[in-house]
C-alpha cells in the first residue's frame, strides 16, 4: 500500500537517481546507437535501417535463434535449479548450505578461459567425448551449434534461478503446505499444486533474468563460433573497422527493446501474485527426512547436477596446472609453474579487482534500495521509469557502454589533464551500471516481503521516513541487500567487455584484463587459467564471507521468522 503525498526528500532522491542513470546510461548509449536512426550520408532521422533489419534473412534468423536459445536455456537452467532448490529447502539434507554456495559458483566464470575449459571437457574432442568415443563409439554434441550455446549458458546462469527460487521456497508459510497435506495431498502433487505456484514470483524473477542475460550475451556464442544470433551479430558489426555499418546499432536497439519487453512481461505476470508475507511468521516449509532409498537418489541427482555445473571450474583448475592438454581426456603432465609466473604480477590486478568490484557492488545496493523504495513505497509519478531504465542496462553490451563513455566523457578533463573517461572510477561506474539490475531485483524482492505495518509502527513512535528507512527497513532488508551486493560483486569481478574499452594502463587493470592478455598466446593458456582460478577463489571467499556475516546478523536479531 503506497503512501500519500510525495515528500521533497523523495523527489530529490528520484531526481538524483534519474540524473545518474541519464548521465551514465542513457546519454552514453544514445551517443552510440543514434546511428541506428540516421540515414547514411545525410545524417537525417530515418527508420529505414530497421526496415532493412526486417528484410535481412540473416537477422531474422538470428533473432529467432536468440529467442530459441534464451528460452531453452531457461528450461535447462530450471532443470538444474529445481531439484537443488527443492532438496535443500524441503528436506533435511546435510550439505544444503554447501550446495547453495557451490551452486553460486557458475556465475563467476572468467571470460575466455572458462570457454576454453568447457571445450576441453565437453567439446567435440573434449575429455568426455574422447572417452565415450573410445569406449562406446559415439559422441554427445554438448557444445555443437545452438545446443552448445544453450548448454553453456544454462550452466553459467542457472544460479539466478536457484537463488531466487530457494529464497521464495523458504518464505512460504508452513501452514499452506500442512493444510494441503491435511486434505490428502503429498509428494509431487503437493509440490506441483501448492508449493511451486506459491514460489512462482521467485521463480519468475530468476527465469526472466536468465532469459534476458542469455538473449543479450555475446561472449559465449562467439567463443563457440555461433554467429547467427543477435548479440554476436551486433558485436561483430559494431567492432568492424573501416566500414560505417549502422546495423550493429540497430541490433543493439532491438536487444534493448526485447529485454525491456521481457522484463515488463514478467512483471505483468507477477502483478497479481503478490504472495508476500501476508502470513505471520511462517517459519518456512517443514523439512522432511529422507528415507535411505530417496536419499541415495537425491545424492545422485545432486552430484550429477553439481558435476555438470562445476565442470568448467574443474576444467579451469586442471588447465591451470597442466603442461600440455591437447586432444586427450586429461593433461599430459602437471606443473605449478603457471602459478609461480602469475602470482608475482597479479597482486595489482587483485587489488584493483577488489576495489572496483566492491565499489560497484556498494553503488548498486545503494541505488537498488533507493529505487526499490521509491517504486514500492511512494506514489511518485514516473517512478517505474527509473525501474525500467535501470533494468534496461542488462541489454546494453559492455562494449557499447564503453564506447559511449569514451564518446561522452573523453573530452572532459580532470585537473591534471587526464581525461575523465579513462579515470579508473569510470570503470567502476560502468561495472555498477551493468550490474544494477541484479541488485535492484534483489532489493525489490526483499522490500516486497516487509509488511508496511512495521514502518508505520516506527513512524507512529516518532521516527521520520528516513530514520525509519535506516533503522527499520534496511536492517530487515539485509538478506536482499547482501544477495544483491554479492551478485554484483562477483559478476563485476570477472567482467571484461566494458573494461577492455576503458582500461588505460596496467596499473588500473583488473584480473579479467590480465587474464585476457595472457590468453592471447599459446604459452599464456596456463597462466591465464591460473589467474582465472585466483579470480574465482577470490570471489568465492568474499561470497562465503558475506553469507557468514548475514547468518550471524540474522541470528543476533533473534530467531528470525
Amino acid at each position: 500500500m503506497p503512501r500519500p503525498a510525495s515528500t521533497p526528500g523523495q523527489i530529490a532522491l528520484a531526481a538524483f537517481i534519474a540524473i545518474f542513470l541519464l548521465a551514465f546510461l542513457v546519454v552514453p548509449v544514445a551517443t552510440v546507437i543514434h546511428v541506428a536512426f540516421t540515414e547514411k550520408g545525410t545524417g537525417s532521422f530515418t527508420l529505414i535501417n530497421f526496415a532493412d533489419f526486417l528484410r535481412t534473412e540473416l537477422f531474422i534468423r538470428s533473432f529467432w535463434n536468440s529467442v530459441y536459445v534464451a528460452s531453452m536455456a531457461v528450461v535447462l537452467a530450471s532443470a538444474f535449479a529445481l531439484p537443488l532448490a527443492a532438496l535443500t529447502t524441503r528436506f533435511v539434507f546435510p550439505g544444503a548450505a554447501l550446495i547453495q554456495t557451490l551452486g553460486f559458483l557458475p556465475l563467476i566464470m572468467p571470460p575466455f578461459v572458462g570457454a576454453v575449459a568447457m571445450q576441453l571437457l565437453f567439446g567435440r574432442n573434449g575429455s568426455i567425448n574422447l572417452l565415450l568415443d573410445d569406449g562406446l563409439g559415439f559422441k554427445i554434441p554438448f557444445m555443437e551449434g545452438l545446443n552448445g550455446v544453450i548448454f553453456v549458458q544454462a550452466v553459467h546462469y542457472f544460479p539466478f534461478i536457484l537463488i531466487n527460487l530457494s529464497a521464495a521456497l523458504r518464505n512460504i508459510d508452513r501452514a499452506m503446505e500442512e493444510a494441503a497435506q491435511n486434505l490428502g495431498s503429498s509428494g509431487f502433487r503437493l509440490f506441483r499444486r501448492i508449493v511451486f505456484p506459491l514460489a512462482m514470483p521467485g521463480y519468475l524473477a530468476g527465469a526472466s533474468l536468465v532469459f534476458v542475460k542469455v538473449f543479450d550475451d555475446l561472449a559465449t556464442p562467439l567463443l563457440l563460433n555461433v554467429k547467427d544470433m543477435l548479440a554476436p551479430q551486433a558485436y561483430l558489426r559494431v567492432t568492424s573497422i573501416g566500414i560505417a555499418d549502422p546495423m550493429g546499432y540497430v541490433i543493439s536497439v532491438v536487444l534493448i527493446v526485447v529485454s525491456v519487453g521481457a522484463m515488463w512481461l514478467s512483471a505483468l505476470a507477477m502483478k497479481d501474485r503478490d504472495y508476500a508475507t501476508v502470513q505471520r511468521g511462517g517459519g518456512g516449509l517443514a523439512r522432511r527426512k529422507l528415507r535411505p532409498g530417496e536419499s541415495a537418489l537425491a545424492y545422485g541427482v545432486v552430484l550429477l547436477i553439481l558435476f555438470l555445473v562445476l565442470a568448467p571450474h574443474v576444467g579451469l583448475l586442471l588447465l591451470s596446472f597442466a603442461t600440455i592438454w591437447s586432444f586427450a581426456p586429461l593433461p599430459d603432465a602437471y606443473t605449478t609453474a603457471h602459478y609461480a609466473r602469475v602470482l608475482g604480477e597479479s597482486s595489482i590486478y587483485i587489488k584493483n579487482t577488489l576495489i572496483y568490484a566492491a565499489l560497484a557492488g556498494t553503488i548498486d545496493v545503494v541505488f537498488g534500495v533507493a529505487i526499490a523504495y521509491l517504486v514500492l513505497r511512494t506514489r511518485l509519478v514516473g517512478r517505474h521509469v527509473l525501474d525500467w531504465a535501470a533494468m534496461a542496462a542488462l541489454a546494453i553490451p559492455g562494449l557499447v557502454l564503453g564506447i559511449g563513455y569514451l564518446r561522452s566523457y573523453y573530452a572532459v578533463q580532470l585537473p591534471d589533464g587526464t581525461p575523465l573517461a579513462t579515470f579508473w572510477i569510470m570503470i567502476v561506474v560502468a561495472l555498477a551500471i551493468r550490474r544494477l539490475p541484479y541488485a535492484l531485483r534483489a532489493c525489490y524482492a526483499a522490500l516486497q516481503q516487509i509488511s508496511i505495518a512495521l514502518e508505520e509502527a516506527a513512524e507512529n513512535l516518532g521516527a521520520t521516513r528516513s530514520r525509519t528507512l535506516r533503522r527499520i527497513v534496511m536492517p530487515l532488508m539485509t538478506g536482499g541487500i547482501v544477495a544483491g551486493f554479492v551478485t554484483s560483486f562477483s559478476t563485476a569481478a570477472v567482467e571484461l567487455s566494458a573494461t577492455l574499452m576503458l582500461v588505460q594502463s596496467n596499473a588500473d587493470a583488473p584480473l579479467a584484463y590480465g587474464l585476457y592478455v595472457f590468453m592471447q598466446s599459446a604459452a599464456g593458456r596456463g597462466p591465464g587459467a591460473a589467474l582465472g582460478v585466483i579470480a574465482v577463489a577470490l570471489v568465492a571467499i568474499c561470497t562465503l564471507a558475506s553469507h557468514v556475516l548475514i547468518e550471524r546478523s540474522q541470528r543476533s536479531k533473534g530467531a528470525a521468522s
Partner: protein
Amino acid sequence: MIIRRTLVITLATLALSSTVALSQAPSGKVTVVTSFAKDVTDPIKKAFEKATPGVTLDVQNRNTNAGVKFLEETRANNQVDLFWASAPDAFEVLKGKKLLQAYKVKAVGIPEKVGAYPINDRDGFYFGFAASGYGIMWNERYARANRLPDPREWQDLTKPVFHDHVSIAAPSRSGTTHLTIEAILQGEGWEKGWRVVKEMAGNFRQITERSFGVPEAVNSGQVGVGIVIDFFAFSAQASGFPVKFVYPSVTTIVPANIGIVASAPNRAGAEAFVEFLLSPTGQEVLLEPSIRRLPVNPAVYAKAPADYPNPFTDARLGSLLPFDAELSETRTAVVDTLFDQLISFQLDALKAATKSIQDVEAALAKKDNAAARKLIADARDLIAAMPIDAAGAAAAETRGAFTGAKEKGARQAEFEQQWASFARERYAQAKQKADEAAKLAR
C-alpha cells in the same frame, strides 16, 4: 551496520588508491596500444628500455578492432603514442581518419619490399618492422585419430578427407587472413580465386572471429587443421603442443606494422621506439623463440639459426607473386563482406552442398556416369558463382555503400541481403543437383 562498515572501508581504500593513481605520469613514458601478446611485447619492452634508459614503455593490450575504435573515440585528448599491430588494413583505416602522423625513418638497411609486399606505407604513416608467412598448422594427435594426411598445399584443403576438420579466422576480423585471401584472389584471378576459396570453405569446421581462435582450437585438438600465421604455430610448438606446420608453395608474406599516433603526447619517445624496432638490435629481438617473427632487415638473418625461414632468399616464401596493394585496399570492405555473406553466415548450407558433391565424386570414382558428372560440374559452378564481378567489386558506388560516403546509393544492408540470398539459393540448387547425381551414380 554491515553497510556502514563496508562503506567506511571502501571509502578508505578509495582514498588510498586515488593517491596511488594520481602519482602516475612520470616523464619518459611511451604509451603503445597493441594487439600483440605478452610473449612478444615483454622481450621487446625489456630490450627497448635497456637500450633507451630513462624511458619506460607502457603497453596497453587490445584486440586490433578495439584499439582502432579506442583511438577514434579518444582523438580529442589523445594519450597514446603508438599503434602497434599486424594487419595493414587497420593502419589504412587510421591513416584515412587522420589518426596517424607521418615520420621519416632514420634507420637503414630495410628494403622496399619483402616478398611481393611493400614493407612501409608509401606515404610514411606506418612502417613494417617484421614479417610473417601464412601456412597450415595441424594437430598430430587429431590427425592420427582421424587418419588425416599431412597437408602440403592450399589445394589439399579442398580434398574430401579434410571435410569438417579445418578452421580459419574471418577475413573481416583478421587483417592478415584477409591478405591471404586477397593473395589467392590476385594470384588466381577473381572468379577462379573465389572458386578455390569456396572449395576450401566447404571443408571448414569453424570460422573464428579473432585470429588467435584458430591456433587455440588446433592446440586443444578441437579442430584438426588451421590456416594460421607461422608464429602462432612456432610459439605453440615452443610451448610443447603436439602441432606441425608447413608453408605451402604459394605463401603470402604479411607484415606487422607500427605507426605513430597523431598528436602523440610523447613524440620523441615514440620516434625512439620506432627507430629501436627498426635498428639491428631491435630486429634481432624478433629472432627469440617466444616471438619468432621474420625481421625486415636482411642482414639480421646472419644471426639466425640455420633453418630459420628467410623471405629475402627463400623462393618458397611468396616472392614469386606480384601483389597489388592498391587494388587490395580498394576492395577490402567488399571482399570481407562477400566472404561473410557467401561463406561465414551460410556455412552450414555450403558445407552440406559440398559434402553431397564430395560423396558423389567418391562414388563416381568407382563407377563413372556421364550424366552425373555433368550434374556435379553444374553443382560446382553454382557454388562458385559470384554475385558481383571484379570490376563491380572495385567500383566506387559499391565501395561507397560500406564507407558511409555522402552519396546516396545502395545501402550496405541491401548488398548484404542481395549477396546472402544469391548464395543461399545457389547452394540449395547445388545440393539438389548433387542429390540427383547421387541417384544416378548408384
